[in-house]
């Protein structure tokens, strides 16, 4: 934090702009802390309040606008990608889309305060075809609210930054423990999964060329190609292997009933 304050005094506008732009583009950078430090610098008369607010809002808007158009042109693929890490990608996509549809306007204004949501809000607005002018208006309100809030915190806490610094150190230690515990839990989970599937023999794999040859032979009638991508089809124009069918991986018990028992099953994902 002390280093941040010194940096702020020297390169405050550029640093604030760069960090907030990076955050708006989805990078994990300490943008809120930069704003707090900038607020403290304003209180010390090292920076001008209107100028720093202008730099912050412009950076956030530029990043969000880029994300908005990325969402617009990638359709639902971006949300699908973000949901791949969830336990149930299909549900994640459906719920995120529905939730944003219901609360999208409010969400855009407060999204920057909520880690995770701030990364998804702008591309979701693009994917869901929100009008650009409406997005810009709401995002502008969100950017101003976020910047003013943290600058104000920094402005007020100038004299208490030493105490804040101590708090950050404590929070950092706690975060290290949480991250370490999460890594250990994940390693145990992967170990259990590995042990569970160890009893199975290695899954037969087939190259595309071999499968094509099989499709061209007398055995073609015994081939069933199955799309098992983690989420469904949302965009018109999405393609799949010709003649394949889709089964929903999260609803396997039901989906299996539709699979032909007399055919060999060839699975593929992206």
């Amino acid at each position, binding site marked *: 934090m002390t280093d941040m304050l010194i940096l702020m005094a020297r390169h405050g506008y550029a640093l604030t702009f760069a960090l907030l732009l990076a955050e708006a583009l989805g990078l994990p950078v300490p943008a809120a802390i930069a704003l707090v430090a900038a607020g403290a610098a304003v209180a010390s008369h090292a920076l001008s309040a209107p100028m720093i607010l202008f730099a912050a809002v412009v950076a956030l808007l530029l990043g969000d606008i880029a994300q908005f158009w990325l969402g617009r042109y990638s359709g*639902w693929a971006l949300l699908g990608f973000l949901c791949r890490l969830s336990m149930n990608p299909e549900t994640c*996509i*459906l719920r995120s*889309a*529905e939730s944003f*549809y219901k609360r*999208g306007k409010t969400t855009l204004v407060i999204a920057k305060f909520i880690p995770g949501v701030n990364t998804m809000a702008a591309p979701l*607005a693009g994917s*869901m*075809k*929100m*009008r650009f002018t*409406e997005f810009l208006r709401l995002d502008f309100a969100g950017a101003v609210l976020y910047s003013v809030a943290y600058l104000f915190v920094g402005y007020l806490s100038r004299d208490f930054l030493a105490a804040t610094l101590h708090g950050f150190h404590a929070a950092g230690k706690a975060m290290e423990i949480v991250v370490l515990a999460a890594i250990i839990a994940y390693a145990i989970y992967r170990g259990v999964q590995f042990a569970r*599937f160890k009893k*199975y023999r290695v*899954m*037969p*794999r*087939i*190259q*595309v*060329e071999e*499968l*094509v040859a099989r499709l061209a032979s007398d055995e073609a009638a015994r081939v069933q*190609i199955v*799309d*098992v*991508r983690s989420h*469904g*089809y*949302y965009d*018109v*124009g*999405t*393609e*799949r*292997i*010709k*003649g394949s069918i*889709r089964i929903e*991986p999260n609803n*396997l018990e039901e989906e*299996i009933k539709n*699979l032909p*028992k007399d055919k*060999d*099953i*060839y*699975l*593929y*994902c*992206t």
Partner: protein
Amino acid sequence: MAHLLQEKGFNTFVIVGGLTAWRKAGQPLESIPKDDLVKLPTFS
């Protein structure tokens, strides 16, 4: 998933490289049938 299908008695194979490899090999693709499309809400 492939293991689970095997467990249920299906003779299962995994296509190496998936859709990307299939597309790279120039093999035929098809657009998703309209009935299979999931309609997500949009603001437009």
